[in-house]
């Protein structure tokens, strides 16, 4: 199975405060997070995430452990996040909430250009160039395949 969508490019060292600001955290309503995702980075970003592949620079998701960050990206409709490196808590959180996160070097991001991902075969393709992705551990693959840690746990 492949995933495919237009790229939305963001920079490096994007912290989770920028993904979803602290002032929106005190609720269980995931739609609030989706509505305000990346508001302090670029207020035009949220509506462009539906069906998109978010392509970030190094150290994506650094800072706070807030799980609302990957949930906000997922709820806004992004189908995957690609970066050369991720902050470790964000990376684990994303897998746990069923948002595919892909470590991949060398991608030149152009807003709107199509990005295709094959998790099974381990590649990302954009602009006619195919890039290998760093494989997830078996357990992380299983958690992601189940749709996150909660369904993974329930299925065990």
């Amino acid at each position: 199975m492949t995933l495919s969508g237009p790229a939305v490019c963001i920079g490096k060292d994007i912290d989770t405060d920028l993904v979803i600001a602290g002032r929106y955290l005190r609720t269980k309503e995931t739609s609030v997070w989706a509505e305000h995702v990346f508001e302090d980075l670029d207020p035009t970003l949220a509506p462009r995430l539906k069906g998109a592949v978010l392509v970030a620079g190094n150290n994506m998701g650094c800072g706070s452990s807030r799980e609302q960050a990957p949930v906000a990206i997922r709820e806004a409709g992004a189908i995957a996040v690609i970066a050369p490196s991720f902050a470790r808590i964000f990376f684990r959180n994303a897998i746990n909430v069923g948002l595919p996160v892909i470590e991949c070097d060398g991608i030149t991001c152009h807003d709107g250009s199509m990005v295709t991902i094959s998790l099974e075969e381990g590649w990302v393709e954009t602009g006619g160039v195919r890039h290998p992705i760093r494989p997830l551990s078996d357990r992380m693959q299983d958690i992601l395949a189940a749709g996150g840690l909660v369904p993974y746990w329930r299925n065990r």
Partner: protein
Amino acid sequence: MSTLSERILGGSAGTYVDREVDRAFAHDGTGVLAMEAFRRMGVPTPARPETVSIIYDHLAPANTSQTATLQKELREFAAAAGFAFTDVGGGICHQLMSEGRVLPGEVVVGADSHSCTTGAFGAFSTGVGATDMAAIWAEGSTWFRVPDTINIELTGHLPAWCEAKDIVLTVTGRIGMDGGTYRALEYTGDGAAALSMAGRLTLCNMAVECGAKTGLFYADRTTQAYLARYGHNVERQEPEDATYCRELHIDLADMEPVLSVPHRVDTVAPVTEYAGTPLDQVFVGTCTNGRYEDLERFARIVRGGQVACRTIVVPASRAIMQQAAETGILAEIIAAGCMVGPPGCGPCLGMHMGVLGEGETALSTANRNFKNRMGVGAEYYLGSVATAAVSALSGEITSPEGAL
């Protein structure tokens, strides 16, 4: 030969291990989401409730009815689950875990990124998100990828006007915001051994600011003496000739007071470069610098003077606030014109109790200066307690050199 992380986790760097979690904790922010995930997992009862703490610190006391309602729900959940519960006013989770709840050699997991703080006791202590925390409640264990380790050897003596915060900001500047990703930081050397527990906690607290999984000190006489005050008799840990992925050497005699400049923690510069920058607010507190030793240092500088800008001081725990009241330094801080807030995170995360306004500039002893975090459209510098104190007195960024 093993690094301390390899020894505690029982595997070599790069391998995946499953480990029982000795202590787990969450706060009012992450605890609510962990509770939701735990319920959705459909597990009737937690595996080892006696190992779990819930500590209210992020919005303590509650700022809105919505927050209060969520806190009420988690409070009731924690009681039913049999978790140790600390209500508002107790203090910051990392500080409370530091007050005798974490011991050398333990595996400690907190649902907060600064859970690396208690690595200062020679524990493997790290942060996770809410769903991982729920799974730990359910199972009592979790998986880890054993990290590579950067050895940071500290030697020599720190100048009187410098403190642990200047060391950790310098380290963060040298390693960079992602230079520690998936790694652990081990502090060794005679300069590390000479640091107090408070200083060690400050250093480990900020390990996550360069992406590291945790920061660690080997338990030594200082650790033993500190934990003995809480009734714990612990063994020392001796460093082995381990394989490190990177070695950093810092001569403490070369330290100077430094700042993290907006909006990156790893943009570190001497305080003197920014001297004279007018300040709207100074904030002293947080899991980085809200300990008794910090308040005492702050009081020593502001004693008898008057602060020249809005200055908010927040003790990291009730025990610290009580000690500061008993020794009289709290009265001195108040007499100098500071506002003292209730123990907790204060304005650090930009939710209440001193959030900054648009266009305002502040100096904070916290650990993050991310854009908009402590106030939309504001700028804030991170610095030491001494830098905060002299800057509060002058109302502008000022170097503490010569003040101590």
